[in-house]
């Protein structure tokens, strides 16, 4: 199962990231209004949408965006979460109190408001960076990618909180284990204890949570895009495609079914891969 999931994700990634090189530059924006809502088959393999854009092309581009958001934002949250949680849990006491209160405060901020504020203020920032470059005669422009970048930051900034809490809890219970005491007693440097003895032992729950985070992040992206805060049309993401499809469910089922099915299979695959990884990394189960 895990292998099948892994193969599927690899295929999907290949299709989304390498596929576009073989397509025309406007493969996902090419609007042919006469062909709108064409059923699958014929010229449009997976049909066309309400603006006559090729559904296959849009799914490929959407996969690119969704996977990128899912993986990058999860990676960001993973890195911050593990580092933060490990330090907080291992040192405990006052350090832990302060670090965890900070997490609580961030947690209590309403996520949507936080993201809206971030997006609104940072949008101007992106424009002014461009301004700054233009003033110096440079062609460099960041505002094209700026929204994506912000999306990563916003999602990462929220998702790491839970990760940090999970890691901290795990580390705290590990810290009570005698083998950590044995490490201290051997005179091992703290850094080595943390990253050689602690981190490998918390990977199990972390991987499980990560496989849950990737889909959660993809959903979050869909939600933000829906609010008009995430990916900006005409760039598609799976979330946006599903939303568009849901709006036209009666007239054009293919607009919902294809991206929806793909999304679901992807989420399943990530879960299977997560389970497989956890078992593979655990010496106890690798043998039987």
């Amino acid at each position, binding site marked *: 199962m895990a292998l099948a999931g892994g193969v599927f994700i690899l295929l999907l990634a290949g299709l989304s990231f390498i596929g576009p090189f073989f397509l025309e530059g406007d493969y996902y924006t090419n609007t042919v209004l006469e062909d709108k809502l064409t059923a699958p088959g014929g010229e449009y393999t997976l049909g066309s949408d309400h603006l006559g854009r090729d559904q296959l092309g849009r799914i490929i581009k959407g996969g690119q965006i969704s996977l990128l958001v899912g993986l990058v934002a999860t990676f960001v949250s993973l890195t911050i979460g593990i580092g933060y949680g490990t330090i907080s849990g291992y040192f405990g006491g006052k350090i832990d*109190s302060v670090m965890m*209160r900070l997490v609580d405060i961030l947690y209590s901020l309403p996520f949507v408001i936080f993201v809206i504020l971030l997006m609104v203020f940072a949008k101007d920032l992106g424009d002014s960076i461009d301004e700054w470059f233009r003033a110096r005669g440079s062609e460099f422009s960041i505002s094209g990618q700026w929204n994506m970048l912000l999306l990563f930051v916003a999602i990462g900034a929220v998702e790491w909180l839970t990760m940090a809490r999970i890691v901290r809890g795990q580390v705290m219970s590990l810290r009570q*284990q*005698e*083998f950590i*005491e*044995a*490490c*201290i*007693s*051997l*005179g*091992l*440097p703290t850094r080595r204890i943390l990253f*050689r*003895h602690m981190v*490998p*032992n918390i990977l199990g729950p972390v991987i499980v949570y990560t496989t849950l985070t990737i889909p959660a992040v993809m959903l979050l992206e869909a939600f933000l895009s829906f609010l008009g805060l995430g990916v900006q049309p005409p760039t598609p993401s799976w979330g946006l495609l599903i939303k568009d499809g849901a709006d036209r469910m009666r007239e054009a089922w293919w607009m919902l079914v294809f991206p929806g099915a793909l999304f679901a299979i992807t989420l399943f695959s990530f879960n299977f891969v997560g389970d497989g990884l956890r078992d593979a*990394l*655990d*010496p*106890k189960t690798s*043998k039987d």
Partner: protein
Amino acid sequence: MSDPYLQINNLKTHFPVEKGILFRKVTGTVKAVDGVSLSLAKGEVLGLVGESGCGKSTLGRTVLQLIKPTEGTVTLGSRTLTDLDGKELRSARADFQMIFQDPYASLNPRMTVYSMLAEAIQVHRKVPKADLAGAVGALMEKVGLAARFMRKYPHEFSGGQRQRIAIARALAVEPKLIIADEPVSALDVSIQAQILNLLSDLTREMELTMIFISHDLSVVKHISDRIAVMYLGRIVEIGPATEVFEHPQHPYTKALCSAVPMPDPDSERTRKRILLPGDPPSPLNPPSGCTFHPRCPHAEERCQAAWPSFESLKNDAHQAACVRLAELNQ
């Protein structure tokens, strides 16, 4: 006794009890170890006996500087361990090691025996990579494990074998002092004997000084030269092993000895058992004076006044802290 090698002087380990989420307030103190003085000669094995919560494990961990003492000093050889900090302490740790109770928790489940032992060997010594496998193999053979198992993970071993791995890891740094915290109580009877034999062979061969912590008097008697009995953070009796076991002087030691069930039906049915009332009190609010007085069958009013000092009857090496020591042992 020759010059003491390990000297513990009036050691106290108190834990504050805190309440509150943001602003912690100290609401009490748990006196886990409350003024323990001990000295051990080089190569000596001291058995430390007591019931759960008496502070024997905390004492062991404080001696090894895994817990910072509140007061008092620990001197090993010429070095005062309680004065060391940071890097100095880390490098000093080569001299003293601990063997833990639970061989299922004391080994990192994600490391092979080889990487675990190789890591321990390399902490304080430079060993060329090519020689490592040989060193690990030698270490494993020393504790009675076949070297060919070195690529296995802890879960592939039984409890007794795991405890052997833990012992090998402690010996990897070539320590002088070992503190064994209930090393056999998680093991089956038939395996216990194997580990006890191994420990007593090793201490003899390597001239290790050892503190052997256990709640099981008969195990302690077997392996130790001297026995110290702890009750609520203090030592109440100390002396040569056989003497403490066969002729206990302190009322608590007497009760403890009589409570140990003997695998001998005749003596078990005839012997008189001293049944102590109640449970050991909490170290959070220890009773005044002699902390044993609420459970002691011989307690008098003066027992509540102050902690009694150590006294000896015949043998100076055998001491007990009881105000009625002389009258109770006539």
